């Protein structure tokens, strides 16, 4: 395998200006996505995970840092290279109701990318669209219908077919399953996994659902208010999580088993996610953390390797380990 990562983020920061304040949605993230792997990006709403996804897609320009695709900064691309990049990196959206054009029939939706990039003749495009629909578990009869005739799960399949049309290498999946019912979520996750095996795709799987992300991800990154707090192989993260936020997050998820639920002890976090404005020089989690000391309010902890391929950003790991996260 080629050693060069598919995508590399180097200290990426994406800011928004809100009146006089600067909202630091993504505040210095280093991350690598390899070919054919799934990286799960987990965090609560407002932590900047979607902004990071859009920064990767060349939709937001980072204020600082670089997004390197196959070793080259995507913001130094020429116009043609930019177009080529758009073919190689695709996106699947959260809301299957809002992300399909209601005026287009399904095969037009799916083949729109091919049309824009001028690939194939119209007839070939139609055939390609049907082939793609079959790959995602729909069939020929569906091709001439409008999006409103489909259920949520089927629409999400159309969205996936559209993302696959240009044969990308990386797909940014922004909460692809959270708008779907439980029984349909499993269908979509299994479909994404099958497609990955067949086509060697890499996914950036953005979600807040920690139980689902375990089933699909190779590595998982936990994000809190614009910064990564922990990054590890997925099994490792679930069994040996070390950051206080990860611990609280995992313990907050209810498990579908009354016996286990009765025995578990929950780490309840006080308060809500604090405002991402003005948290530059401190640990992003310090306001809700049980271990926070003065140091946490004055110095931002950096990600450091605590075990092989396991990174944590916390000043007080020894303390946390001693108390088992409580």
């Amino acid at each position, binding site marked *: 395998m080629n050693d060069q990562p598919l995508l590399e983020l180097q200290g990426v920061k994406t800011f928004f200006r809100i009146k006089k304040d600067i909202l630091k949605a993504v505040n210095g993230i280093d991350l690598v996505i390899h070919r054919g792997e799934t990286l799960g990006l987990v965090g609560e*709403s407002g932590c900047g995970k979607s902004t990071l996804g859009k920064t990767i897609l060349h939709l937001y320009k980072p204020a600082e840092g670089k997004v390197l695709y196959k070793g080259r900064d995507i913001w130094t691309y020429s116009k043609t290279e930019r177009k080529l990049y758009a073919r190689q990196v695709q996106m699947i959206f959260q809301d299957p109701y809002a992300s399909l054009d209601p005026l287009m029939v399904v095969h037009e939706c799916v083949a729109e990318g091919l049309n824009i990039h001028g690939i194939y003749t119209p007839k070939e495009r139609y055939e390609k669209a049907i082939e793609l629909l079959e790959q995602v578990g729909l069939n020929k009869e569906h091709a001439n219908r409008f999006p409103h005739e489909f259920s949520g*799960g*089927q629409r999400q399949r159309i969205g996936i077919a559209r993302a696959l049309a240009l044969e990308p290498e990386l797909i940014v999946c922004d909460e692809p399953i959270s708008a779907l019912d439980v*029984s349909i979520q499993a269908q979509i996750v299994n479909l994404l996994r099958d497609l990955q095996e067949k086509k060697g795709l890499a996914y950036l799987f953005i979600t807040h659902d920690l139980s689902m992300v375990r089933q699909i991800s190779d590595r998982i990154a936990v994000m809190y208010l614009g910064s990564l707090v922990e990054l590890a192989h997925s099994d490792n993260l679930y069994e040996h999580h070390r950051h206080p936020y990860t611990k609280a997050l995992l313990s907050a998820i*209810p498990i*579908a088993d*009354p016996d286990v*639920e009765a025995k578990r002890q*929950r780490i309840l*976090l006080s308060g809500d996610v604090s405002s991402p404005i003005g948290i530059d020089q401190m640990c992003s989690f310090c306001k809700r953390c049980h271990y926070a000391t003065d140091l946490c309010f004055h110095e931002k902890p950096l990600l450091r390797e605590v075990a092989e391929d396991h990174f944590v950003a916390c000043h007080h790991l020894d303390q946390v380990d001693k108390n088992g996260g409580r």
Partner: protein
Amino acid sequence: MSQDKLLEVKNLKVSFRTYAGTVQAVRGVSWHLEKKETIAIVGESGCGKTATIQTIMGLNMQNPICSKEGQVVFDGKDLLTCSEKQMRDIQGNDMSIIFQDPFTFLNPTMKVGDQVIEVYCRHHKATRREATERLLEMMRLISLPDPEKNIKRYPHQLSGGQRQRIMIAMALICGPKILFADEPTTALDVTIQAQIIELMKHLKEQIDTSIVLITHDLGVVANMANRVYMMYAGQIVEHADARTIFKNSKHPYTRALLGSVPRVDQKTEGGLFSIPGSPPDLIDPPTGCAFAARCSQAMNICKRLQPPEITFPEPEHKVCCWLHHPEYKARKKAVGVGERHE
């Protein structure tokens, strides 16, 4: 046991007339709620769980396209025959409801404190000062940070978790006997969800109310509910206490649903189990078992006839499925049919 029944729903049917045809959202549902218990009604979107409780609460009384049948017995009265005025005395006072999305149901032009006491003033002859006192007491109960300041804010100035706390305060300020919670935590983040669940469990003890929890999140059910009703396509397919549902479910739908939920504490090897297809169209519901088209163990009879309700004693466990029909079981024993499937 029957004296303890706080609310009893008997063969409730709700349908909505639309341009496409009549949607039979709820097709004959019976359940009851006892004092001081939490029951959960579990099902996927569109299975009729919300339509059921909206009908009980009288929220679609004036809805011209909605027609209802059956009985809802509360306090010796049939709520479906109550006048609107009678209902208004019950709403908010004897039973109240928490909605999924607090932002849509709070009035954006009113301060949250005023919204909460509005209910209280409607049902009690209280002065403003008394109401405000009660309000602050409530705010402490729901542990809203900085109550004096926060009750003077507008809904958009609060976070999602705080808004949901306000909804809960509003629902509980009159000390209702029944609290309906319609997906109370679906719109919230997991850490906030854990806070709200703890809060509801705590308040249930304090205010001495019964909860009807409506959700599709089986994890929340495992955490809160005493008994569970599984709903599919407008009908109840299985009913038992929570432990039995999770450990010893008998209906293929319940089993499939449990199988498709990933657990944080375990890794499912070789892909998740998923239920093929999607729920049936309730404009023209199937004549047989509604789940037959997606069921891996479906037999010929499932597609033709509605399955009867089969009761297992100790602990009470009801299943609507042909697989548990005594004749099928006897036949299976005799000829050995169906064993391949199980």
